[in-house]
């Protein structure tokens, strides 16, 4: 039995959530519509949800300069794949070691991991160490290694899973059968930990796919431009617009800039894969976020 009061609440909830969903979606819809707007119409009439003239010109432009964009897309995929794979492997290996509470020194190691959540050097020393000691400026490693490859919070997440969700008896029976730690790890622990590793992989994959900061810091346009990912290209266009808008154009002319509709088309192809796969992985993603929020 549902009271009238309760019914009114449900109505209100539907209204608020439907309006919010629309607010969440409308910017993306505008982005897609601009990318399909005729360029001249976009400049003369401004951006609109109902453009006077539609066109696929922006995407034809992308096809014409396909070299650059296919390359950038390839870089995005490559960086995401390498980064995510390495992240899942080294995170789960370290987490496994930390889950062995009886191991001598494991308390110290735990502290070493947790301390990185509390204190960090920040951009300046990180940038200097990576560029002057490891020389990763303008190499692909500049996109993969800094900051994204492992985080203390992911380690804690996986460690807790190993400790609480895999029964201790399994380890013991494997040890009695003469299995070594590596064997136990790869044959027993990993197959039983697919849900948590999928969550970690998914979240890391999205941060690599979306990352533009490493490119901003570690790739210079003239020497590292060939390594740009899609996000780096989007960022570079923004930088050029900013230069054009300020009084010192700094050698940038509007000819260097793709048209407004083409820029939106690049953004569309940049977010397309995430929007397509996201609904299927929404459950894992939401779970990972909730787990991570309290710890870390």
């Amino acid at each position, binding site marked *: 039995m549902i*009271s009238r*009061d*309760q019914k009114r609440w*449900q109505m*209100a909830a539907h209204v*608020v*959530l*439907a309006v*919010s*969903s629309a607010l*969440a*979606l409308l*910017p*993306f819809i*505008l982005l897609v519509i*601009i990318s399909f707007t005729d360029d001249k119409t976009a*400049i003369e009439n*401004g*951006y609109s949800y109902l453009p006077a003239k539609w066109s696929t010109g922006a995407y034809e432009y992308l096809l014409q300069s396909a070299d650059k964009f296919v390359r950038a897309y390839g870089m995005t995929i490559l960086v995401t794949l390498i980064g995510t794979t390495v992240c899942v492997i*080294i*995170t789960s*290996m*370290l987490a496994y*070691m930390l889950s062995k509470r009886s191991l001598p020194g494991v308390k110290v190691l735990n502290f*070493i991991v*947790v301390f990185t959540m*509390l*204190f960090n*050097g*920040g*951009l*300046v*020393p*990180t940038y*200097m*160490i990576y560029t*002057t*000691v490891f020389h990763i400026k303008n190499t692909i490693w500049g996109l993969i290694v800094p900051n994204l490859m*492992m985080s*203390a919070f992911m380690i804690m997440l996986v460690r807790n899973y190993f400790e609480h969700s895999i029964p201790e008896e399994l380890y013991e029976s494997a040890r009695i059968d003469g299995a070594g730690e590596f064997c136990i*790890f790869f044959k027993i622990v990993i197959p039983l930990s697919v849900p948590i590793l999928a969550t970690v992989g998914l979240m890391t994959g999205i941060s690599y796919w979306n*990352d*533009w900061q490493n490119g*901003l810091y570690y790739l210079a346009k003239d020497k590292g431009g060939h390594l740009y990912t899609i996000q780096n290209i*989007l960022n570079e266009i923004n*930088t050029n617009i*900013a230069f054009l*808008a*300020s009084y010192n154009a700094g050698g940038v002319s509007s000819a260097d800039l793709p048209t407004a509709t083409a*820029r*939106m088309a690049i953004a569309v192809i940049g*977010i397309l894969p995430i929007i397509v796969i*996201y609904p299927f992985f*929404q459950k894992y*993603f*939401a779970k990972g*976020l909730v787990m991570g*929020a*309290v*710890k870390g």
Partner: protein
Amino acid sequence: MGLPGLLYLLINNYMPMIGLTVAFKDYKYNLGIWDSPWVGFKNFKFLFKTGDAFVMVRNTLLYNVVWIILGMVLGVTFAILLNEVRSRYAKKFYQTVILMPYLMSMVVCAYLAFAYLAPGTGLFTNIFARITGREVSFYTETKYWPFILTFVNQWKGIGFGMILYLSSVIGIDPSLYEAAALDGATRWQQHMRVTIPLLKPTIIMMMILNMGQIFRSDFGLFYQVPMDQGALYSVTQTIDTYVYRALLQRNDVGMSSAASFVQSVVGFIFIVTANQIVKKVDEKNSLF
């Protein structure tokens, strides 16, 4: 087995911590971090003599405080409303869609904002021009940006707040509501007297944990969305954007490393304090 991971922490986290000493040095490119001469607090004196230090600390703290409170209110409200929805499909749809902006990079968010605010062509620019007869130049006028940044921040983050509090709302025993309804409590009263009090531990926990991050800011939001426009720095400059600009745009290692050092140390104090408070409130939610 943990060796690769520990090695990574050494390179990515511990070497930069030692490298923080560069803030007390007169950095020379040919000498590097270790061999540059010590200058004591000179960099800090220079930094705090400029008005920049005050502006970036003020912006970082004020935006954070407002967003933490606003995010909490909206997150709890949306979680309660989502829990009212009976249809499983509608529930899943709302949750999926409202969480989607959370997955976007800040560069993409900057493009979305630009579609509305661009000079001459932006949708809002044109609508405002039609209504008021005056063209608003969003990317040069500071007074709009506290609202724009707040909107983008909440637009992106509200889905996260929602699912976070939802997991606590779902855990509330339904018999409590039944008992309250039998006593004649309206749905509003039920939420005020049952839901909110039961969410209080989660809310307090999240507030304290967020307070621990109050000296940090979302670099992308403050750098990308205002399109790095100098005219807007008075309302968009935070510690993170300052450090980046000083280091990579002006090559001023002294100033940027001093600001970076202050952020690391004060941030550390905030986090440890927050964690001590969490420990007092609820032992199992503390970080260490």
